[in-house]
């Protein structure tokens, strides 16, 4: 089972990495933001998979904190659009 | 190759990339970013050393890890100060660079 979970984590990481092409290409800044958002979710998923596969202590806690802060960058982006 | 060695090589490249960016990028904001890359690379090197010092049932040596935690917080405060300075310069001059505003050729 751990092998399968590790494989899934690797695949998700690689896929999200491909999605990062959006950061490169843009064209708009919101597109870049979306790529980071996807990376955040994928990163959380990979972290959970890795954490459970290799039973790392604290991995789920780190995922919890990442999930809590997931909206943070986007909120700052949007509020600075409204009031520079 | 062990994972620790892999991350060690990663940290070496990060330090190099951060150093290069800091030297070459002309905009202060980018220099701040590169400095943070350089710092992250250094921290990661500490992490690798800590990982290799795993003993006493711990996954890594806690002393370098604790130092890195201190380092991350200090790096954040340095970044906040640098960004505040940059924004203040920007407020004064209307330009996000440290160049003199007059010459166009220097650009």
């Amino acid at each position, binding site marked *: 089972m751990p092998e399968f979970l590790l494989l899934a984590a690797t695949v998700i990481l690689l896929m999200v990495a491909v*999605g990062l092409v959006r950061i490169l290409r*843009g064209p708009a800044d919101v597109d870049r933001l979306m790529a980071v958002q996807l990376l955040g979710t994928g990163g959380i998923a990979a972290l959970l998979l890795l954490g459970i596969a290799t039973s790392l202590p604290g991995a789920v806690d780190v995922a919890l904190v990442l999930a809590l802060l997931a909206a943070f960058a986007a909120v700052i982006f949007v509020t600075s659009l409204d009031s520079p | 190759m062990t994972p620790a060695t892999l991350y060690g090589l990663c940290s070496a490249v990060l330090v190099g990339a951060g150093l290069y960016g800091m030297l070459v990028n002309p905009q202060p904001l980018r220099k701040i970013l590169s400095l943070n890359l350089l710092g992250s690379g250094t921290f990661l090197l500490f992490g690798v050393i800590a990982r290799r010092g795993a003993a006493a049932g711990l996954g890594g040596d806690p002393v370098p890890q604790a130092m890195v935690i201190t380092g991350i917080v200090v790096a954040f405060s340095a970044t906040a100060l640098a960004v505040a300075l940059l924004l203040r310069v920007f407020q004064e001059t209307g330009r996000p660079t440290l160049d003199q505003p007059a010459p166009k050729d220097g650009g």
Partner: protein
Amino acid sequence: MMLLGDIATGLLVSAGVVFFLAGTVGLLRFPDSMTRLHALTKADSLGLGLVVLGLLPQAASVLEALKLVAVWLLTQLAGATVTQLVARAIWRGGGRS
């Protein structure tokens, strides 16, 4: 029993991976920001949701399982808000390069 849990994990995590794939492909291939946002939300909610659901049988304790569900709920909340905010920004012309 253990086997059944493992099978469930395999199926659900694989389905989650598929939704991440869909999100990535959509983010890359869809023509404009609004449609890309749509693709993103699929990976956000369903992808992670299925992965979490699949990991539940592997959780070491009830507390860990609860934390897994909490992670998913939090990303749901964050994802929904971000989608709303970003959509508003696109609508109002924030999609400048």
